[in-house]
């Protein structure tokens, strides 16, 4: 006779192995890439296989998470720190998101890198896999130390990707990126140890630890939060620390698409959400008035970055500034801290990822097919590249927040979350930002479709590996806008997370 307890224990063990397997998928892929570096087709197929396997594994784990349990796995432990992995709803959301978009991006990057005849493709593919590994490590980490380890590996493995072209400008961007992020890493390290010093743990616990003792350690807690905010704020591109992101756009487009719209910047935001929701707790944050600090900083970043985007004419630069402002949506949502706002913030991680990857894929395809990167040059291109531009327009519309696209779902929640009298002022930020979004996205669509092509040169769509990923991500933007729980239950996961952290 096997009791129910034993069954669940066996299940947990099994799930634990699945967790290890899912985590190591990108590592196997990177090893395989090194082994098969001479055979380009095998090499480029490996990340897709790994992404698919990992996606299926995470899919398997969803029912258990949906029931409200978590999957834990213990790594090596040292003197007073240990590597712990915990899969909860928030981690699963980020991990599934990263895995699915990795699948799309690895398909896209085959077309992009080969079409653009880039050099060092093996190095590119290798570090890309390592990046995904470290993103998963961030997503699945059970305590701050594990998150930090993943975060630092992520920094290092993105560096070769930013510098990929090895030109003078790329080198400068790479150096700037590394100095910003590794420097911030030191602050995170100090903040993490200080937090450990106060609470003797850095494990993530829904609702946080700090509330019961915030009054006696209020100064220390404010300082530690400040260090975390600066440290993670670099990757989350908060206002004075954002300038690495536009210059890092010199990297090949797949890097900008996945890493600078999803993996890298989102891991900064993700980590900050972990700090707010799982170490401090929203109540403590409010009691210490930290929500105002974070809120004002995020609101300023939103407006500032949108204004900067208006002044840019380079496509990728516009997208970079748009990313900066969208990331702060998430942070502002967390700072407001009502149920709807937090739900909107967490779902916006998903929504923004799909919209932004569509836009980046679009910009990349345009660049590869026509060599044009400036919005002034887009005139009439909509007729030559119909699929790309339709998809790009859908991305823009969703970014603005038109209903029935995914951007609307999160924006609706964010706005309703800030309607309560206490938070009333924040509504104007969303509205102003929406207007600015219209102002910098519409000219592109207008130029592409309603202007005539100036002279006779003619372009056509690229290979299927370029337009298929864009098509899929555009479809996802539309489908998730109508049915947010489609396939991956992102909305359900966001709900679960919100339920866990909002008092």
């Amino acid at each position, binding site marked *: 006779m096997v009791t129910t307890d034993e069954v669940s224990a066996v299940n947990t063990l099994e799930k634990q192995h699945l967790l290890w397997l899912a985590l190591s998928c990108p590592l196997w892929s990177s090893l395989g890439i090194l082994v098969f570096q001479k055979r380009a087709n095998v090499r480029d197929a490996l990340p897709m296989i790994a992404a698919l396997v990992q996606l299926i594994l995470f899919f398997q784990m969803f029912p258990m998470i949906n029931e409200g349990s978590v999957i834990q796995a213990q790594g090596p432990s*040292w*003197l007073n720190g240990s590597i712990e992995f915990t899969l909860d709803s928030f981690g699963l959301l980020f991990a599934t998101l990263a895995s699915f978009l990795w699948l799309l991006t690895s398909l896209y990057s085959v077309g992009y890198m080969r079409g653009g005849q880039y050099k060092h493709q093996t190095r590119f593919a290798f570090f890309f896999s390592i990046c995904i590994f470290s993103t998963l490590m961030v997503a699945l980490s059970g305590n701050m130390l594990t998150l930090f380890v993943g975060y*630092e590996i992520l920094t290092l493995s993105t560096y070769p990707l930013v510098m990929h072209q090895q030109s003078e400008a790329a080198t400068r961007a*790479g150096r700037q990126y590394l100095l910003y992020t*590794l420097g911030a890493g030191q602050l995170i390290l100090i903040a993490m*140890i200080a937090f450990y010093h106060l609470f003797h743990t850095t494990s993530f616990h829904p609702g946080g630890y700090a509330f019961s003792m915030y009054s006696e350690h209020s100064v220390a807690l404010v300082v530690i939060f400040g260090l975390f905010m600066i440290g993670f704020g670099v990757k989350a591109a908060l206002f004075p620390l954002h300038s690495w992101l536009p210059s890092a756009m010199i990297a090949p487009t797949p890097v900008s698409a996945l890493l600078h719209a999803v993996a890298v910047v989102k891991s900064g935001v993700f980590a900050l959400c972990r700090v707010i929701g799982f170490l401090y707790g929203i109540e403590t944050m409010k009691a210490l008035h930290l929500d105002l600090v974070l809120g004002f900083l995020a609101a300023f970043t939103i407006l500032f970055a949108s204004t900067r985007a208006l002044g840019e004419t380079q496509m990728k630069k516009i997208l970079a500034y748009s990313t900066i402002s969208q990331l702060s949506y998430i942070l502002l949502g967390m700072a407001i801290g009502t149920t709807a706002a937090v739900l909107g913030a967490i779902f916006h991680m998903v929504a923004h990822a799909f919209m932004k990857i569509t836009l980046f894929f679009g910009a990349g395809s345009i660049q590869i097919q026509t060599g044009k990167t400036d919005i002034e040059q887009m005139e009439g291109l909509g007729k030559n590249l119909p699929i790309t531009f339709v998809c790009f327009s859908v991305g823009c519309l969703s970014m603005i927040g038109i209903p029935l696209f995914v951007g609307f779902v999160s924006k609706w929640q964010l706005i309703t979350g800030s309607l309560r009298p206490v938070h009333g002022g924040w509504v104007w930020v969303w509205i102003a930002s929406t207007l600015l979004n219209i102002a910098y996205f519409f000219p592109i669509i207008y130029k592409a479709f309603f202007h005539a092509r100036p002279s006779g040169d003619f372009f056509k769509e690229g290979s299927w590996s370029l337009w298929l990923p864009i098509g899929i991500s555009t479809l996802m933007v539309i489908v998730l806008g109508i049915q947010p729980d489609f396939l991956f239950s992102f909305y359900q996961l966001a709900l679960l997370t919100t339920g866990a952290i909002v008092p």
Partner: protein
Amino acid sequence: MKHGIEQLVPLAILLSFIGGMANALVFHRTKKSVGVQFISWVCLLLSLTVNISMWRYLGHHKPLEYFFGGWPAPWGITFYVDRFAVAFCTLVSTLSLLSWTYSFHKQPALHRSLFFILQMSLYGMILTQDFFNFYVFLEVCSICLYGLLSDPNEPRSYLSVFRYLAVNTVAASLYLIGLAFVYSQCGSLNMSDLVSLIDLEDLPNKIGIGLMVVGFSIKTALFPLHFWLIDTYGNSKAQNTGFIASIVTKVFCIFLLRIFYSMLGHGEEALKLLSYLGILAWVSIALAPLLASKQKDLRKILAYSSISQIGYIIVGLAEGSSLGLYAAILQIFHHAVVKLTLFFVADEMNSQWGSYDVLHMANLPKHSKLITLACCMALLSLIGIPPLPGFFVKWMLIQSAMTQGHWVVIAIIAIGAMTSLLYTLRMIEIMFFPHTPWTESSSSKPHWNVYAPIAVALVLLMLQVGLLNQLLSWSQLTRYQP
């Protein structure tokens, strides 16, 4: 028990001495002697075996004491072996085996002989309990260094060695004077004896220990007194410097640790003395990497980096907490392996492309994947990227500083990490992203004796994190039993 395992204690010293003498016998010959080579290998392997077996034995036995000539403590010289000491002896024998494997075929016989004698003096300095005996080994060590660091093909090395000699003599004299103060006051030079005799409230004792500490601050090349190290490391052969940079300066740190933790039992007065050293170390940590980033010669970069890394050891010791002590110990191990690897890389560059110019590193990835990987890992560990051992040193140092409220230490460690980023980043950039069009130089495939030590060093670096858990079992590092 009288004639049991403690007879193994002086064996490593004896073996190194035999190796040194065997090599000295044939130093006038131009041809290699197979017999002597055989003896050398046997000596190295045997001393490694002896140390490992003692380490295992001490895992579940009390520390050993060995009386030379059967004379007990106050009169004779005693060696004291606990798990901590034998761990360092194992480190010395491992590193010397690696460095011998790397360089035995290109060393002149005189250098080979000196290499063994140097090893002997290192074992002696780690194990001895007698202050004067330490001084003797210290001088033996210095003489070996003068020989090993002079390079006949580099005339400047003679000048720098001469400077080194002058500075070193001053340091050694300071130590000797300090020792005289302590002896006049306490009437004994044996550490386990002094545990009960010495009282730092007495001014002469304080002056004595203070003078020793100043002597060691020169020897460990802390900031204002570091100039000799840059010159000597920067002008001599990297194959010798590797071993010296990785272990010799550490032995002085170990002795400091012995004095302050085993003998003085980290009392308050004692810690005040150490904290002065700690302040010098802050400057080393923060500034030396800046100077390193300006250098063109890889050896000089590594020399500056050594200065800052030794700073971490001293800061750890000055913390006076067990976490700080663990950090210092781990840093000794970590830095030894890292520096050995990097100096091997420097030497390999010199033998392939004819100079130590750091720009030659651009050739490395094409030259050998393994060496590049080892070099990268070593550099990343220096900046303290998790989960490499360098990270855990910082992790523990910051924890310890936070518990005690030493905010400056925390700031210094953060600044140190940023400044070391400058030179490590530069080297990594040169290796992988040479932006000026770099004309590739041809190279011949390295031999096994280049690959093997670097591979082993890489493995050791990776395994060091496991040491952390061992540190806990080294709690035997308390006061000497009088």
